[in-house]
């Protein structure tokens, strides 16, 4: 009898580990080409629309960065929690609450220009996300609830709260009854990096966050304790690290980053509060975090790649009439192959005869 088994590699090669994302991308391109071919699209042209066209103009690059910013920011925060086995699926809700808090103060200040409105919004956005994430943290520490369920359910609560506000008390009285708030004053908004393009100064917050996250993960004792709590909880207990600390920190950092991303959306491309702030950034960021192997540098590249494919997918819809679900299938393929390649770095398949 023959059967396939998995055998752990004794010495996983460093070079192969570094090359595995590239190999996975190449396999995705091959498999994607096959899919496009059988669906009647010309593979090379389609791939060009997906990968090359978005990068051929400054506007295209700006759009890729625009989408990458919230994805990277949220994923940086989530990755720190995931490393400590804190499974925050509630970034979408934390993002929404961050946008509500920041948007609320922007609306309250209205037309007055203090000069530091935006700064207050940044602080409130982050605090709002953290406050929302502290609910599952408290429940987990106090009652040992499952943070996956609580964070997920709180997403719906947050979205409905936003919906209530923009349909009710915060609706723009001069907005022809549309469910939206008044536009923010210019002092309550990030200015574009380049005039005429949509990517805003919030990109510098993302760059700063990436550097901070990298420092926490690779250099700080805090990141070390959280990694131990996540990968070897009994060793953490033996060493005397408090696991509640990892839960609180993991959720607060993820919530803060997501709240900040929500604030940057409201004070950036939107300029007001709408019933939907994000096209699912909080969920896509989970994929980005894993694409980046939960490492800050990887997350930056993962966010850029996912954003590129999302923009490419939109182009494919526009120019090739491709259905939006196809571009999502393509994204799914990429994630599958990246994770499979990662797995095979540490394990090998072996045919055993017995």
């Amino acid at each position, binding site marked *: 009898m023959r059967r396939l088994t998995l*055998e752990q590699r*004794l010495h996983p090669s460093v070079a192969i580990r570094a090359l595995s994302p590239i190999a996975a991308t190449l396999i995705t391109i091959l498999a994607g080409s096959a899919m496009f071919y059988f669906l009647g699209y010309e593979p090379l042209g389609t791939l060009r629309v997906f990968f090359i066209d978005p990068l051929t103009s400054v506007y295209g690059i700006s759009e890729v960065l625009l989408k990458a910013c919230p994805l990277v920011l949220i994923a940086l925060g989530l990755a720190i929690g995931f490393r400590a086995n804190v499974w925050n699926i509630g970034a979408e809700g934390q993002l929404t609450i961050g946008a509500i808090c920041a948007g609320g103060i922007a609306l309250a200040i209205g037309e007055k220009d203090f000069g530091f409105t935006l700064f207050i919004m940044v602080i409130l956005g982050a605090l709002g996300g953290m406050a929302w994430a502290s609910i599952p943290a408290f429940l987990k520490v106090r009652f040992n609830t499952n943070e996956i369920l609580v964070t997920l359910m709180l997403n719906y609560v947050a979205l409905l709260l936003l919906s209530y506000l923009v349909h009710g008390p915060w609706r723009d009285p001069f907005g022809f009854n549309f469910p939206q708030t008044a536009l923010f004053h210019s002092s309550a908004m990030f200015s574009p990096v380049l005039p005429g393009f949509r990517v805003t100064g919030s990109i510098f917050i993302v760059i700063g966050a990436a550097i901070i996250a990298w*420092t926490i993960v690779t*250099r*700080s*004792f*805090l990141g*070390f304790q959280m*990694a*131990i709590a996540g*990968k*070897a909880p*009994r*060793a*953490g*207990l*033996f*060493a*005397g*690290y*408090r696991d509640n600390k990892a839960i609180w920190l993991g959720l607060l950092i993820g919530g803060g980053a997501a709240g900040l991303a929500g604030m940057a959306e409201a004070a950036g491309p939107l300029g007001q509060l709408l019933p939907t702030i994000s096209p699912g950034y909080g969920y896509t960021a989970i994929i980005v975090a894993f694409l980046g192997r939960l490492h800050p540098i990887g997350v930056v590249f993962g966010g850029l790649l996912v954003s590129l494919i999302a923009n490419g997918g939109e182009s494919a819809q526009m120019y090739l009439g491709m259905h939006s679900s196809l571009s999502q299938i393509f994204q799914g393929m990429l994630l599958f192959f990246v994770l499979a390649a990662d797995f095979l770095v540490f394990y090998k398949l072996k045919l055993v005869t*017995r």
Partner: protein
Amino acid sequence: MSLLELRGITKRYPAVVANDDIHLNVEAGTIHAILGENGAGKSTLMKIIYGATTADEGQIYWHGNPVRISSPSAARQLGIGMVYQHFSLFESITVAENIAIALDRKLDLESLSAEINLISEKYNLLVEPDRLLYHLSVGERQRVEIIRCLIQNPKLLILDEPTSVLTPQAIQGLFVTLKQLASEGCSILYISHKLEEVIQICDSATVLRGGKVVDTILPSATTTGELAHLMIGTQPPTTQRQHVKINSSSTLEVCQLSAAAEDHFGSDIRDVSLTVRGGEIVGIAGVSGNGQAELFKLLSGEKIHSEPDTIRINNVGVSRLNANGRRHLGLACIPEERLGRGAAAGFSLRDNFCLTHHGRNLLRYGFIKYKEADRRTSQVIDRFSVLCDGPHAAAESLSGGNLQRFIVGREIELNPTVLIVSQPTWGLDVAAAAFIRQTLIDLSRAGSAVLVFSEELEELLEICDQIVVMYGGQMSQPVSRSDADIEQIGLLMAGEGFSFQTTAQGY
């Protein structure tokens, strides 16, 4: 003609040749020892005979005919039974149900219980078929495992380190059963590293070293010294003990400590009191599962107790502090599980050094001084002769013995005033074990209070100045080493003289 014959059995694993051209003959009705150090290849060889794994090369003969044993059930059909060192029994069902699960034939529980009673009487293996397993002592569990094999009428019974979990009296009881079995024609493969036992009951012995057969000998015509020499290839190392000089500034005191078990299968701690003074080693003997694991966690700070003065280190009540807080007061601990508890798998030795040393000037503004940590990790590696690829080697890449050297070294490097260690030499070869024992003695003689939990009574008798016994979560009065009497300690281990009796019976 032999019952079982192995010719040229070879088994390779990615990093090691576990069995190298093994030849072995087991005659019918004999007790045949497989003797060797940890890592000599005994367990792999038994797995091959029992069909749990297959050899890369070589041939097995059964009654002189070549056979392929592709699975444990194929082995059972031939008439081979095996009792593993770590039992494979289910806690929440009865003895009879546990036996029924393993049977290849269908049988109703009533007639099975009758059959169990029959075997139990015949071989003096007392168990009650309808008792739930979690009530049973370790000795009883072993009897369940043996009956589970005997019920299938085996021609060959394999026992893997069967005495490692038993009290001295229970060991003698087991030997009577084994001799009776052999006299009825059932051969026994007896895997052990305990030389006295092999000499006492085995008819022949095959010695393995480094995966190869060194010699096959007649145990009754040899001495433990000769056997040890065969087994490890050199003279067995000895430990040096100096006189105890009490250092009253270092102490571990446990005062009327009681605590409920964390779960159903754990043991409650009942009114435990104990004092370990600086300069001496106190050993805690006992059959495993009598509260040792729970007590260790309470002492190490992995579990916190609400009354602050039940545990005192150097006269400070510490019960409410976590492990890190106690470490600051001079406590160091070495748990029995090395990978996953004493050291974190997936992390380098350097990271594992930081695990307990971060409070020793290794942090600056919340950042780890990695260069300094590297340097100090290398020092531990050098001082304690840890075989590894340097401070960046992953913890799981080390052999059990080397990882233990590293963990012991790391904790000793903390200069603890109190050291608590559990199963210090479990699974180590003789040289590594002797090194660790000597290290513990030296630490105590330098003035630290050392507490050792061990299932190996011989080890405790070798290194300890005082011995206490745990039974049912209680602790006996200390016995000093000079007065220690194996018989008496064995009776304590079986629960004699303790007020609280568990539902589990001794032998």
